[in-house]
């Protein structure tokens, strides 16, 4: 029974990883850069949600918060990244690396280094009897929201014009731009979308993990490993990888808490040794 409840915990942790990893993958797939600021934007999502929720209520907060994060992302893309176009990809990497430091310190300056209180509404704070298990409502709520978001994202990427442009852009950017599509606008959109996903992950995780300036640091590494495991450039890979890592981390806690942090690195080392391109990675994507 405890194993089963840990598996469900793992799936929920996994969905948070998936939201983060999908954002990272979308940005990398389209723009070819690794967004180091993703962890900090996760934190920012939590803070925005808490602050908006304080002024209004939880539901407004959890919707408006991530949108603000997306706007911050679009701002960064529009006014900084766009100017790096045509330069080596290294500089995009370094830019987001620097941005991460700046945003983390700005959070500390505005809201202090301490934690922020965040209460979930009474309707979500109880427990649900699943028949075989009594489980916190809020965690099931996360599972529901992320499943819905993943479906929405799937439909967006496969059925809408904007989504198809994004997908095409990650395959062959030159071709897309030759078709007369304003690539830079697509970039801004993708970066906004990716960072918004990070913001949603932060907002959802906030009541579970506590809201503090460094909360995003511990999630970035597992998300890198999720992408390594799932395979660079594969959205399905991000989903499968996220669930595997989430469940693995949760089950490892049963053996020893120490092991739950270590298992991430064990998985990563195994992937590198056995299949460096990951489960669903395409040949030639990041690995020859």
């Amino acid at each position, binding site marked *: 029974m405890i194993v089963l409840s840990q598996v469900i915990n793992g799936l929920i942790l996994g969905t948070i990883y998936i939201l983060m990893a999908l954002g990272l993958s979308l940005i990398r797939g389209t723009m070819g850069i690794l967004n180091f600021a993703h962890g900090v934007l996760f934190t920012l999502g939590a803070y925005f949600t808490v602050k908006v929720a304080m002024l209004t209520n939880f539901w407004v907060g959890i919707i408006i918060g991530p949108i603000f994060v997306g706007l911050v992302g679009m701002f960064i893309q529009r006014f900084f990244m766009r100017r790096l176009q045509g330069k080596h990809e290294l500089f995009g990497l370094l830019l987001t690396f620097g941005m991460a430091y700046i945003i983390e310190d700005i959070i500390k300056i505005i809201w202090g280094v301490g934690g922020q209180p965040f209460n979930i509404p009474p309707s979500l704070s109880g427990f649900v009897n699943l028949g075989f298990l009594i489980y916190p409502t809020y965690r099931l709520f996360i599972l529901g929201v992320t499943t819905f978001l993943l479906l929405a994202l799937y439909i967006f990427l496969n059925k809408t014009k904007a989504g198809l442009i994004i997908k095409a852009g990650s395959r062959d950017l030159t071709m897309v731009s030759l078709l007369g599509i304003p690539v830079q606008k697509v970039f801004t959109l993708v970066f906004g979308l990716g960072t918004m996903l990070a913001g949603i992950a932060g907002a959802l995780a906030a009541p579970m993990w506590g809201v503090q300036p460094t909360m995003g640091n511990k999630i970035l590494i597992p998300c*890198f490993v999720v992408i390594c495991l799932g395979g660079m450039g594969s959205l399905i890979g991000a989903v499968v990888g996220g669930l595997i890592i989430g469940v693995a981390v949760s089950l490892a806690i049963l053996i020893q808490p120490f092991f739950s942090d270590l298992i*991430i690195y064990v998985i990563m080392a195994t992937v590198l040794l056995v299949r460096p391109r990951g489960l669903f990675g395409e040949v030639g994507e990041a690995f020859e």
Partner: protein
Amino acid sequence: MNLGTSITKKNAAFRVGAVIIGIFAFIMLPTLFKSIGSTMFLATEIFIFAIFALGFNLLLGFTGIISFGHAAWFGLSSYAAALFQRHVTPDSTLIPLLFGILFTTLIGALVGKLIIKTRGIYFAYVTIAFSQLVLFIIIRWTKLTNGENGLGGIERKPLFKFIDIVPEFNYYIFVVIVFILVFILLNIIIKSPFGRVLQAIRENRTRAIFIGYNVRSYELTSYILSVFFTSVAGVLDLFLLKYAFPESMATTMSGEVIIMTLVGGMHNLTGPVLGAIIITFLKDFISSFTDRWMIFLGGIFVLFVMVFPEGIMGFFGKWGGNNPFKSLLPKRDKESES
């Protein structure tokens, strides 16, 4: 040809002069530092970070590979040396020092072998993850490493009977000598056929593969050499601070060494040294009145990425060429072509 040689000769004479002036300046530096209210400690630290940045730059500037986790090796060598002195040879400085370097280089070689298969952004992912792994082990293995509090009680003993590095000034001179050796060694490496191949890989990896070089083994060697120089800096830092901190392997430290290289300019050896001087000074200055060093660090990142991607040496020096903004384009050493 004739003209070429004479220029080289002139250059050589110029260089000898520069080196003599340089050495003199190094020795005078602490006196200068004291006069502007700074310390010998800071002067020593600058040269330690210069070694760190030089080692890091062999990978970034001369092989075209960026590691976001080099601080792990810097910190690991500190810890290795500290533990060795505490548990094995409490009366020696030299042996822990050598052990720290050897141990870290070995671990670095193993990790390098594992991660060198990946490239580009993927490499960035795994380097940062491995640095977190090292940090995680150090913090969690509290029995051995004292966790987040760090390891104290490290002592600086005379290196040999006749080389006394205990006084601050003597240690400073020792660090400067190591720095000069590292600088000369790296200069030899990048001018050697091996170094030329590394730069060929940086400029056009695919072409280097087609010419027939075993690119991956060159990259691995470059990585290991880079870890070696980094660990030299790490152990020197330990015997300066006499304390091993987990912060020395945090992501912020990895960021600092990247920014030193970026600020100075990554396509020559002077750049990282200049960057180390500027960033170490700046950090010391800014930390004296605010805790928010990170926002400045990030700001410098953004400024240099956006405005001076070739660094200061690239912007003002001959390496910049006509267009300092066209970064990472082939840059040829004019002497070597004659």
